[in-house]
């Protein structure tokens, strides 16, 4: 097996056994990135990676290493990284070298990982196809005419395409799970508050959550161990103990009750996707799980609710990008208003501007109650649906995305694009943890199975996913290379 086909667990074993050094595997990945035409990276940090790899090798030699020591990864370009360009996929921050590390960046550094570079993404995490990046679209490694999903499209393509061992992602409405599904990898969006948002450029603060994107559930558990935890710099991070997420991977799932929301299997779901998802559910049944149909009646409001809440928050979150202190500034502004107007008009892409305008409108005097407050109410109803469901079932399963990866440039209407997240948005609105795991192929393109768990049930989700991956080999499939 080639280095880039190995999981974290396997690479760590090889490093320990001195089969190769971190410098060697890092060089291997850097070479592959150079040869790749997936456009998965905005910035490749070769020199930094090599020095981190050297430091990791020293630790391994000294025996002071941990399981992530020397493991190369792709860091979504939404996490601030000290001394390294942090663009969030936007022209607005094309010149922004962050003077500080995000908490997640810091935690991964503390774990001795090797950052290969900053992964491409939809601008400010707004998009489901990674076509909204100022740095160009990312290609799906399974078929380079297809989108990889978004917004963590670069991260997903990097892992699926063997350009990094794992990647970080962020998920506001599906941005980890949807690209993970479309690229055939494992992605976990933890419970809101599990991973610190400090230094993660905010899109929609009440929905954003960072998580791992990996080859396997076991790897996801290893990376989550490093990412999770209370951070005093983030008031919304939870003061909740971090268990060892690898500890319960091998628990039996005999007697597990799976809920299938009927709303997730209705009109709009591609037949091929439905078939693979149901096959996966059958696999679980054969492993001793029982299946129950449930209803999440308010999930129909997830899209309108999300497209009020997220734009409202982003319209305010992105106000700091004003051309005054950092980031893009228009040429020779005539006065303050001109500086604001042109810097923001020229610096932001179309989808970002669209969402800022929707949000500013929905928050304005006279509309606030009808939009923002109403959306908060439906958000509560959506959460309540899940609360009821989890009285009856242990885990909810369904498709991640209604279709497999679609053609680059094929979806031009923004509202049609918003439908790509129809099954993922609810978990963000409720703050619940969700996963995507590879569950089959339709027309030679990966299909993901979505797992939604109760609050703080990451261990359980990882256990269920790991058990599935012990019985199936979908997660071991890799795209053909020329």
């Amino acid at each position, binding site marked *: 097996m080639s280095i880039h086909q190995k999981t974290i667990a396997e690479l760590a074993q090889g490093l320990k056994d001195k089969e190769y050094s971190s410098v060697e595997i890092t060089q291997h990945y850097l070479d592959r990135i150079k040869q790749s035409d997936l456009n998965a990276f905005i910035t490749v940090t070769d020199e930094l990676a090599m020095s981190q790899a050297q430091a990791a090798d020293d630790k391994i030699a000294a025996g002071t290493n941990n399981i992530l020591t020397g493991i190369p990864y792709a860091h979504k370009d939404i996490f*601030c990284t000290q001394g390294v360009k942090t663009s969030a996929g936007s022209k607005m921050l094309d010149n922004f070298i962050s*003077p500080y590390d995000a908490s997640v960046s810091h935690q991964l550094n503390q774990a001795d990982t090797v950052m290969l570079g900053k992964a491409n993404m939809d601008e400010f995490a707004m998009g489901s196809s990674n076509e909204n990046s100022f740095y160009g679209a990312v290609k799906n490694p399974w078929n380079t005419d297809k989108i990889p999903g978004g917004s963590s499209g670069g991260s997903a393509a990097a892992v699926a395409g063997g350009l990094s061992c794992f990647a970080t992602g962020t998920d506001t409405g599906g941005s980890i799970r949807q690209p993970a599904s479309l690229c055939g990898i494992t992605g976990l969006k933890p419970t809101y508050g599990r991973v610190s948002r400090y230094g993660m450029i905010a899109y929609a*603060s009440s929905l954003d959550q960072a998580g791992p994107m990996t080859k396997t559930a076991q790897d996801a558990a290893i990376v989550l161990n490093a990412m999770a935890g209370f951070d005093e710099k983030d*008031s919304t991070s939870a003061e909740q103990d971090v268990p060892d997420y690898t500890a319960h991977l091998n628990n039996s799932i005999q007697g597990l009750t799976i809920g299938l929301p009927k709303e997730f299997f209705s009109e709009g779901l591609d037949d091929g996707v439905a078939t693979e998802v149901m096959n996966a559910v059958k696999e679980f049944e054969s492993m001793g799980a029982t299946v129950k149909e449930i209803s999440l009646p308010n999930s129909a409001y997830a899209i309108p609710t999300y497209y009020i809440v997220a734009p409202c928050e982003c319209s305010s979150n992105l*106000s*700091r990008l004003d051309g005054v202190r950092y980031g893009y500034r228009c040429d020779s502004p005539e006065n303050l208003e001109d500086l604001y107007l042109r810097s923001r008009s020229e610096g932001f892409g179309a989808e970002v501007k669209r969402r800022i305008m929707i949000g500013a409108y929905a928050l304005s005097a006279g509309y606030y109650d009808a939009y*923002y407050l109403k959306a908060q109410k439906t958000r509560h109803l959506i959460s309540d649906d899940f609360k009821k469901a989890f009285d009856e079932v242990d885990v909810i399963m369904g498709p991640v995305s209604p279709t497999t990866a679609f053609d680059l440039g094929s979806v031009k209407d923004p509202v049609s694009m918003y439908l790509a997240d129809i099954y993922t948005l609810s978990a963000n609105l409720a703050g619940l943890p969700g996963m995507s795991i590879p569950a089959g192929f339709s027309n030679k393109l990966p299909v993901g199975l979505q797992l939604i768990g109760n609050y703080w049930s990451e261990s359980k989700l990882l256990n269920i996913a790991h058990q599935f991956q012990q019985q199936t080999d979908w997660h071991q499939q890799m795209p053909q290379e020329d």
Partner: protein
Amino acid sequence: MEWETVIGLEIHAQLSTKSKIFSSASTQFGQAPNSQACAVDLGLPGVLPVLNVEAVNKAIKFGLAVNAHINQRNIFDRKNYFYPDLPKGYQISQMDLPIVGKGEIEISVGEMTKVVGVTRAHLEEDAGKSVHDMFNEFSAIDLNRAGTPLLEIVSEPDMRSAKEAVAYAKKIHALVQYIDICDGNMQEGSFRCDANVSIRPMGQTELGTRAELKNINSFKFLERAINLEVERQQDILEEGGSVVQETRLYDAVKHETRSMRSKEEANDYRYFPDPDLLPVEISDELLDSIKADLPELPVQKKARFVTDLGLNEYDADVLTSQKSLADYFETMLDGNEKNAKLCANWVMGELSASLNKNQLDIENSPISANDLSQLIARIGDDTISGKIAKDVFKAMWDGEGSADEIIKSKGLKQVTDMGAIEAIIDEIIANNAPQVEQFKSGNEKILGFFVGQAMKASQGKANPKLLNQLLREKLS
């Protein structure tokens, strides 16, 4: 037509916390530009606010001190607008659920006292400072002040004159210093007043259209700006015009107000709850412990001065009007309590006059409370007379030493030796036979002559009481 003035005040009190309300940067005043602005204050991408609990505690303190309802669950909102000295493009403030709800405070103007309602008080962060006159082509931004905690205290429109408004502002000003939540420094902008002013025909209940006056940085200017605005509105209304709702900037140099922006130009701030901050939950325990730790409030202190020290209402009111004054007075009382009235007289009389004459605050008095206390003690124990004490005070003011040192070095100790005083009296009686006759024939007033002579002979050091007593005995 007779007009009634209606005034409500919005006071911004900077809370005296060490660090900012949402970051760990220092709040110290007067540092090099932008040296106290951290990543959070600069509004860098990805940074998050973390609430400084000290600011919450201080706000609660204020609420309790004005007998207000404390909202034990309160929420931070974002007030969205663009300005270069507002790094995030929004100010974190409190809109619908402020930390402090309805309260009240008593003010007095001359003989009259009245209760002014406090509508609410909420926590918010200050903006930075724009400097427009430093560079030709550019404006400069100093973000040291950005994120400094403010308590915005909003009054009901209960004041009916500029004098009442000033009395209210001074009461709040004294209170925030009493409870140690704000240094009250108006020059440095730690305590700022905006005034909402309107007028209406006497007897009308409906409020007139108001103008908001900004940029007022002293009580004197507050009174002037309000009076100026009342005149302006009267002129408009009496000429048949109508007042426009607007914000007006007070210019102390030109002594005028000018329009800053009208209601139509006002921003739509698109308030919404800040998703980066959790609702503030205040436990009963915290509330109780802050209540228990609350220092004596001015109104309580005043009552105590009257009941325990026997001061009159007026003196007690003056002495408690500023924390620094009350502190000074109370330091003097230490071990000198039986001379409380004398202490009060000296602080309000000799000391205040000298401070005023030299334009000094009591904090900068050249005579410390302990030193003045010693002087009062010497009057109290008859070491010197009140008259001599004034000379000692002058010498102390000029830095010649402590009361005891000056009394000793200048030999001012009162003569209480009966024999010595008798000798002086005998000599005066012997030398002034005609006056002795006058006294004996019933002219009581002539006694003053003998006292004066005796004092002169003793260089003012004779104990007046003893002197009077002995004189009467000898003359009769």
